[in-house]
């Protein structure tokens, strides 16, 4: 298990969230406000009301994201924390519309990027913020970083994308499950016996060979993530390590953030098949 990078700065700010919430009530709300949002706060949201924690797991398809989120949910619930999840295309407002757009392969990149941002903000405003107000732990199966990376490799300006998402909540912890494209390919192929149009970036005409296209596209995404990781202080984990090893690392980090003492966990019978 190798942990290639962690950012002490982001750790520090997230650990201090609970403390600064107290400060904010004493009228010193600006520092806290700045730590909760990237830029201007979303309208109608008072940062100091958000007592829950937002934990993001990023990584390409085949990085083991969904497996880890299922396991973390069970662990947190067994520790007595209520969990809410979010992910891409899960909003009531436009989730299905995006599915339809993707199926057609006719949508242009900017429209798609903006539909994804609508999907994101609908979930953020109507599900995530209420959950954080109620003190829940939100586990995000991908976040704005995937959306920014996908749009950026298609030539949409990074400044433009950061401008759109500057009203998004800054996560308390962002994990990046990093896997090589070749490994992601093996895992995805094993899972579904095929490679999806969008995950191989076929709209970008990178190669007529599906394997080449997938590798080139995922390499571009990975480079974008390396840039984002530095900028936003991701906690990078080796997604090629075994499920239980990655999970132990995630639990350690989350436990220290939430003040959970023990990190012992063994999946229930229902999830035992994930524990490789």
């Amino acid at each position: 298990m190798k942990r290639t990078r962690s950012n002490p700065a982001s750790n520090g700010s997230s650990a201090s969230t609970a403390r600064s919430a107290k400060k904010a009530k004493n009228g010193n709300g600006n520092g806290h406000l700045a730590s909760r949002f990237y830029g201007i706060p979303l309208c109608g949201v008072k940062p100091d009301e958000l007592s829950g924690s937002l934990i993001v797991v990023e990584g390409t398809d085949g990085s083991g994201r969904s497996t880890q989120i299922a396991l973390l949910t069970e662990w947190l619930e067994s520790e007595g924390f209520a969990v809410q999840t979010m992910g891409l295309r899960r909003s009531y407002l436009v989730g299905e519309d995006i599915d339809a757009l993707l199926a057609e392969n006719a949508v242009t990149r900017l429209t798609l990027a903006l539909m994804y941002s609508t999907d994101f903000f609908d979930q953020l405003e109507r599900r995530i913020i209420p959950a954080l107000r109620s003190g829940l732990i939100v586990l995000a199966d991908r976040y704005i970083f995937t959306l920014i990376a996908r749009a950026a490799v298609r030539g949409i300006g990074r400044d433009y994308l950061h401008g759109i998402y500057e009203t998004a909540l800054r996560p308390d912890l962002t994990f990046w499950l990093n896997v090589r494209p070749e490994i992601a390919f093996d895992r995805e192929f094993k899972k579904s016996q095929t490679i999806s149009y969008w995950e191989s970036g076929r709209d970008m005409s990178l190669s007529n060979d599906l394997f080449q296209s997938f590798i080139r596209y995922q390499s571009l995404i990975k480079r974008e993530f390396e840039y984002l990781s530095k900028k936003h202080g991701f906690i990078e984990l080796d997604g090629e390590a075994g499920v239980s090893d990655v999970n132990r690392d995630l639990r350690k980090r989350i436990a220290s953030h939430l003040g959970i003492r023990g990190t012992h966990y063994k999946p229930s019978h229902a999830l035992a098949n994930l524990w490789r």
Partner: protein
Amino acid sequence: MATITSDLLAAPTAASAAEPEKSPVARREYPGALVVVEGIDGSGKSTQLYLLKRWLEIGGYRIHFTEWNSSPLVKSATRRGKQRRLLTPTTFSLLHAADFADRCERQILPLLHGGYLVLADRYIYTAFARDAARECSPHWLRNLYSFAPIPDITFYFRAPLDVAVNRIVAGRPKLKYYEAGMDMGLSLDRAESFRIFQERILNNYDQMIETDNFVLMDGTMRVNKLQKHMRELVAERVDLARFAPKSKRK
């Protein structure tokens, strides 16, 4: 020649340099022209643009007319959001931006590159005025729409609030929820809410007269007089010969 001044469609970064020849460049020039009308509901802008369009059509010019909120791609989402009242100022704004992006990428930009005179009934300034009235940050909105080409002329039709509001209320039996700005909680009375909302929008438009080079048009003038004025201004500022049928070109 008009240019896109935004850096949205920037040159590819090192990470996205896979296909440089396919990526757009920062400043694009095109042979077309873009004429836009803006103003609050009831200001007379659509009537005037229709008359301008008829004049150019009858003359055989290469034109295309486009209006706000007409893309089928996001129609079902917009309808769902409005019916169930799920839209927040942010998602309302983003959904309209997605809709506009679709029209921009698939209609307006190709037409401008193809040498058309494009007439737009409402443009990005509608979003700036309306979404800022819903308290979206103006700075955020400017960034959101920075991909849009800057119009050659933006006509701003201005009518006093009472005149405009009465024109709408008289012609419409029931104002729609979002149209009346009911989501803002301005007033429980729909007509009153509509009035307050339109007043905010009007103030936001007024602030853009200077910053966005609006051509101010008096919406209370007689229709045919105003149209004559509009046609003169278009002929003055747009090289119409470029869009004329071959028989009229010298």
